[in-house]
């Protein structure tokens, strides 16, 4: 028996659409965005993308490859019209695992002026998260995962995190930054086609 498979003809609206920011800001170092939305940065104490959240999409995927000059925490902030949102309404929770132990760690951060979303390190790290409702008058939610390697132990740490931002304002961008040191890497934002 052959089962027919139904697929919708989404055409060019299928899947994820890469987004070119309207501008990029770095706290130090350099930054650049190419014609297909790949953002590169080097020696940056922070990287901000402006104009990536628009009325075209409700949900977004953000992918960051990074290496830092220090081993430190990684933070996220929403941003609008070129300014970070720094009110103490970021709530984050995280479960982390390590390469050198089977122990799981739970970490939380409440009523902070930024969202704690894992770590940056002196070797390769990868951070990926989705955000819902950035440009909608409702609470913002991030769900994501990150993995960082490190030159010396514990050499690997993976984390799964969730964040909500208790704000119903709208935001067109975000900032990613380490608590210490400067980061080098690439960043890209996708919009989810409905």
């Amino acid at each position, binding site marked *: 028996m052959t089962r027919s498979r139904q697929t919708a003809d989404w055409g060019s609206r299928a899947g994820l659409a890469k987004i*070119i*920011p*309207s*501008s*990029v*800001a*770095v*706290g*130090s170092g*350099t*930054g*650049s*965005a*190419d*014609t297909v939305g790949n953002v590169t940065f080097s020696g940056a*104490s*922070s990287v*901000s993308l402006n104009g990536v959240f628009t009325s075209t999409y409700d949900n977004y995927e953000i992918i960051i490859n990074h290496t830092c000059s220090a081993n*430190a*925490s990684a*933070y996220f902030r929403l941003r609008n019209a*070129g*300014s970070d949102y720094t009110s103490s309404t970021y709530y984050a929770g995280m479960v982390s695992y390590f390469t050198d*132990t*089977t*122990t799981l*760690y739970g*970490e939380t951060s409440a009523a902070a*002026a*930024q969202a*704690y979303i894992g770590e940056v390190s002196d070797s390769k790290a990868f951070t990926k998260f989705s955000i819902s409702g950035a440009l909608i008058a409702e609470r913002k939610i991030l769900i994501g995962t990150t993995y960082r390697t490190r030159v010396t132990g514990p050499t690997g740490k993976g984390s799964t995190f969730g964040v909500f931002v208790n704000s119903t304002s709208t935001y067109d961008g975000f900032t990613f*930054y380490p*608590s*210490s040191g400067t980061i080098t890497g690439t960043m890209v934002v996708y919009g989810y086609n409905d």
Partner: protein
Amino acid sequence: MPKEPIDITPADSVVPVYLEEPTEEELAQRQAEHEAAEAAKATREATRESALAKLAALGLTEEELKTLAV
């Protein structure tokens, strides 16, 4: 007072790139966050080491404890 952004757009960028240096206040806040996070990690690790030492005193290993916890 935030510093005025400086246009540092390189030739290969299709959008403007600005240098927005953090304020002294922002830098101090990041340093405080960093120190607090590092202190929390150290506390967690010390607690874990203490717990493992107690397990060892009871004759249990970490793996045996996990077996019991499942």
